[in-house]
């Protein structure tokens, strides 16, 4: 594995010349699953640059390759063509520490919430080599500080089955952040929650982003969620996906749920909705 040197990820890399360093860069990256006649194109040649500290939301019709972009950025999938650069190096080098969260919180049922959240520290350097020494002191405090930030103070020694779906999803965010990732990849993290819990978690995620300053890539099918959270929204076409619109979201922060009912916000939502309706009715066949 790569040696990790916190805060020096960009030194000496070609992208460091830019004013704001680039965290994630896809250059003509495409992904095709399978081979020959059974090949399924999941993502058309896509070029996307995400600056360090940006909060980018990916929206689009289902099955359009949103999650594929996320998996490219995490190194779980290799591009069929093109290159994926993360933190100034090829993605396989793992130059940026990554945190991930999915719709399913996947807490391990035999561990308390606290220990579940500490799991990444057991895996990632430089925390890994100190895990035995610090798990009862510094790391536990770290986990509890995060829990407090998401409103789960005092729940650290509960077991996952004692928490509701919304609480588990908060814990899931904590687990994605505990190892101080520079890049946070979220795949429909709030998809299974009710409207009110979801809106509550938007604010929590916004706070977390504003304090932790990580680059966030959020895949969602909820346009309000995208407009509330993101500083930039990329709209994708139907499978095989490509980016059809890429626009900044300039509402001031911290944003509130009340803002989502103001005319500007509603107009943005309608614009995004228009793109997706078009994308659904005109599949981008042969667009590669």
């Amino acid at each position: 594995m790569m040696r990790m040197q916190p805060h020096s990820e960009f030194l000496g890399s070609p992208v460091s010349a830019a004013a704001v360093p680039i965290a994630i860069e896809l250059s003509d990256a495409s992904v095709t699953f399978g081979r020959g006649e059974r090949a399924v194109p999941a993502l058309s040649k896509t070029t996307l640059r995400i600056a360090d500290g940006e909060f980018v939301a990916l929206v689009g019709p289902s099955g359009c390759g949103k999650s594929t972009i996320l998996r490219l950025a995490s190194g779980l999938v290799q591009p069929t063509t093109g290159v994926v650069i993360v933190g100034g190096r090829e993605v396989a080098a793992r130059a940026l520490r990554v945190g991930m969260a999915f719709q399913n919180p996947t807490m391990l049922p035999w561990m308390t919430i606290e220990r579940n959240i500490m799991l990444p520290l057991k895996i990632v350097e430089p925390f890994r080599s100190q895990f035995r020494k610090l798990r009862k002191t510094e790391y536990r405090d770290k986990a509890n500080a995060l829990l407090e930030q998401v409103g789960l103070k005092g729940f650290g020694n509960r077991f996952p089955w004692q928490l509701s779906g919304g609480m588990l999803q908060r814990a899931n965010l904590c687990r994605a952040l505990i190892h101080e990732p520079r890049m946070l990849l979220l795949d429909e993290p709030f998809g299974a929650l009710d409207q009110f819990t979801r809106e509550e978690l938007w604010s929590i995620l916004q706070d977390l982003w504003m304090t932790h300053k990580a680059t966030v890539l959020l895949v969602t099918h909820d346009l309000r969620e995208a407009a509330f959270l993101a500083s930039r929204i990329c709209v994708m076409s139907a499978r095989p996906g490509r980016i059809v619109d890429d626009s900044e979201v300039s509402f001031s922060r911290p944003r509130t749920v009340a803002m989502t009912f103001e005319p500007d916000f509603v107009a943005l939502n309608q614009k995004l909705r228009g793109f997706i309706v078009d994308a659904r009715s005109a599949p981008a066949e042969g667009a590669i």
Partner: protein
Amino acid sequence: MTGRDVRQKAWSAALIVLFFVAWELFCVMSGMSDLVLPRPSEVFVTLYQKFPLLWPHILQTLATTMIGFVLGVGLGVVLGAVIGVSKTAYDTAYPLLVGFSSIPKVAVVPIFVLWFGSGSVPAVLTALSICFFPIVVNIATGLATTEPELEDVLKALGASKFDILWNVGLPRTMPFFFASLKVAVSYAFVGAVLSETVASNRGIGNVMITASSNFNVPLVFAGLFVLAGLGVALYVIFSLIEGRVTGWATRKNDLIAT
């Protein structure tokens, strides 16, 4: 323990007592010969009187059972882990395993005797061969059911296959593993006794065969009682261990209200 549990246990105990009382009454009233079906009271007396004689045989049977069981668990865990981490290995190896496990183990005892002579070795091997299968199946199933999302989260962190197996895969198989241990230890016991009855000069199985050829029927039954007692004891021990180690898998219902 709730009142309901206590009542349940009382009923179980009552049923056991009732069983022996009915047996005793049946023998007395029908004037059944000792040579066919001895009275349970007679069996218990025999058991008490012959216990010093039975004790080394009990130890022998327990020893072969436990050695066979430990080896079987080792083999089962390794095989289960190997075929559980890969879907292809699972599908490829399964027919062979099922074929092997369908062979009645009494049929392989003579082969073991042919290879290793009569005595402890065939008993250990029979115990091993009969008990490893449930462990293989349970470990493999437990590993195969790991959530793909969690695996992705850890892989994105740079976790190795071993990290994932150690932190997620193996703990997740523990409930399956301990459930299979209960079954496997009973199987190992059956295997050891089976082998002793066919080819050994020690062990409870051998005592019973010798006693029956001497028409010492109460001693045969005393042997049966010992077997039943040991079988229950082994099962209970492993149930208790299971409850301690993998309480998280079953505790759910007790704690949901807290």
